[in-house]
């Protein structure tokens, strides 16, 4: 267990280092001059030269690389070239909005995905199975940016049920900052109007973001559950007269859980890019949209910081997934 943890954490840091390296290499390949980009076209040659030597940009690339890795290791991602603010402050400002979007969509895809998959396995071969298979294929095939636009068209434009963009009605000001998640901060402040508005704004983007993961979770649940349902101990459970319902939920599902949990962890990486798309469509002020805007402006300190953050979270969640195996199934030993 201990060696497993040490090895995995070491690999996590190697992965993050890899992400830093790849983005650093990419940043050096950009044809534009970072000093010139930071100072603008009006700066004189000597100002540019001074900027370069201050930032170490006149050093050889390997030296720059080591310095950069050192800075990142201390949590110093530098300043954004565009906004001139420390990148870490910007990330702290935008990350909560993305987390507030990711959690409900992950919950949606788990609840509906597992439900759909269980229904399909339970009613295997019937029309329920067919419908569930079709729905999960639709989920898998959905261009989420388009779904976001269609949801806006139907539920905002035509029906007027949900707002089309942003995190709150423009008439309201955000709750006092505690976690940065508006729904939770509103509850902490006891402001039901704010909670309602924040939740209301969350519905459409969360639904749009959840579709792909929902489809994958449903398929994985079905096939994993079918495997388990044909095993001997399920036959034993049935033959001792247990209700089918209890066989399914208590005996089979828990044993079918490992591949489902694994696929959810692996999906998280794709959900970051899904967040870029969803946040763009719904003008959601999250870190995905912020990083993407930075990318278009070749603001590499921001891009690197975002990539490192996303890689770290992804690696960390997948570590938790691996650790959960032995909790789900006590026979599993992590070595």
């Amino acid at each position, binding site marked *: 267990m201990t060696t497993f943890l040490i090895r995995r954490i070491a*690999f996590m840091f*190697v*992965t993050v280092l*890899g*992400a830093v390296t*790849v*983005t650093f290499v*990419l*940043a050096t*390949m*950009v044809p534009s001059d970072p000093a010139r980009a930071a100072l603008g076209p009006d700066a004189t040659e000597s100002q540019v030269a001074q900027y370069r030597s201050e930032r170490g940009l006149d050093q050889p690339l390997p030296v720059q690389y080591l310095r950069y890795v050192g800075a990142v290791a201390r949590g110093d991602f530098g300043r954004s070239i565009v906004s001139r603010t420390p990148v870490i402050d910007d990330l702290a400002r935008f990350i909560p909005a993305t987390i507030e979007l990711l959690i409900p969509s992950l919950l949606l895809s788990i609840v509906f995905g597992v439900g759909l998959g269980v229904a399909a396995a339970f009613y295997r071969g019937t029309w329920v199975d*067919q419908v569930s*298979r*079709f729905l999960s*294929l*639709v989920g*898998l*095939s*959905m*261009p*989420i*940016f*388009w*779904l976001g*636009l*269609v949801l*806006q*068209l139907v539920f905002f*434009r035509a029906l007027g049920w949900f707002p089309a963009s942003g995190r709150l009605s423009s008439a309201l000001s955000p709750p006092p900052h505690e976690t940065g998640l508006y729904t939770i901060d509103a509850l902490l402040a006891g402001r039901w109007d704010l909670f309602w508005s924040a939740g209301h704004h969350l519905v459409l983007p969360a639904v749009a973001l959840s579709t792909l993961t929902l489809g994958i979770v449903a398929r994985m649940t079905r*096939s994993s559950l079918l495997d388990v349902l044909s095993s001997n101990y399920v036959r034993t459970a049935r033959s001792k007269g247990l209700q089918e319902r209890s066989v399914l939920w208590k005996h089979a599902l828990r044993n079918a859980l490992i591949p489902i949990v694994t696929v959810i962890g692996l999906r998280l*990486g*794709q959900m*970051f*890019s899904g967040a*870029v*798309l969803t946040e*763009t469509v719904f003008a959601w002020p999250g870190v995905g949209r912020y*990083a*993407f805007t930075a*990318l*278009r402006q*070749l603001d590499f300190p921001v*891009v690197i910081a*975002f*990539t490192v953050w*996303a*890689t770290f979270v*992804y*690696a960390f969640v*997948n570590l938790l997934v691996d650790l959960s195996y032995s909790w789900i199934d006590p026979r599993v030993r992590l070595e």
Partner: protein
Amino acid sequence: MTAASRAGIRRAWRRGLGRLSPLGWVSLVVVVAAGVVALFPSAFAPRDPLAIDVLNRLKPPSAAASFGTDELGRDLLSRVIHGVRLSLGASLGIVLLTAFVGIPIGIVAGYLGRAVDTVLMRLADMFIAFPSLIMAMAIVTVMGPGLRNAMIALALVWWPQYARLARGTVLQLRELPYVEAASALGAGSLRIMVGHLLPNAFTPIAVKMSLDVSVAILATASFSFLGLGAAPPSPELGSLVTQGRNYFLQAWWYTTLPGAAILLLSLAFNSLADDLRDLLDPTLRY
């Protein structure tokens, strides 16, 4: 290709079409139709996809223009038809390119083993641990937006999936007597890898490739939607959705129909690939 695998394919084919699900049949029709349309877009498009007609701007679908027109009066159906060609071409290109990079790496790692295997697979693990589309977005931005660069970037981040799959299959095949026999007859490593391992490792790879077409369709469209892939006035499907987004509150058809085409294409490839996987290899699971 060995005789065994030829017979296997024949057998799969005989049983195959008979065992397609109804959804699989519909998907097959959609895929074949999309393929034909993609090969001969001009034969199917009612008008020139770039022909401007400012008198008929943003007209809703009608008998004259069944998908309506865009902000310059271009016929949307014709643009979608040419878009299918671009999207489908790019997606197949991505899958082939990715497989072309990943498979040799996987076979080499699996067959040679030892240090080569360790180095290549650690590298692959690292790439798998990245949020791949985010990384691909960064790569495209640096290389410059465009459909071709988007394809290269996606191949750069997706190759480890093929390398892992090919390696895993080769590890099993390597121990089989026919490989030993080939080696005993004096076949070199290259000959064994290309002539013996590659063809026999191909079933799971073909299944993965067919499943990945729809992933590639969605990725291409997403990149174009974000302005990283095909740029206007190109009628790539994702790019059409972006162009329509500026008018989408007054012209619902402009974003809705090209996006529906993306969904239909990717759904058809997905469900066909799903059936194909069940036919070729019932034990595989993704």
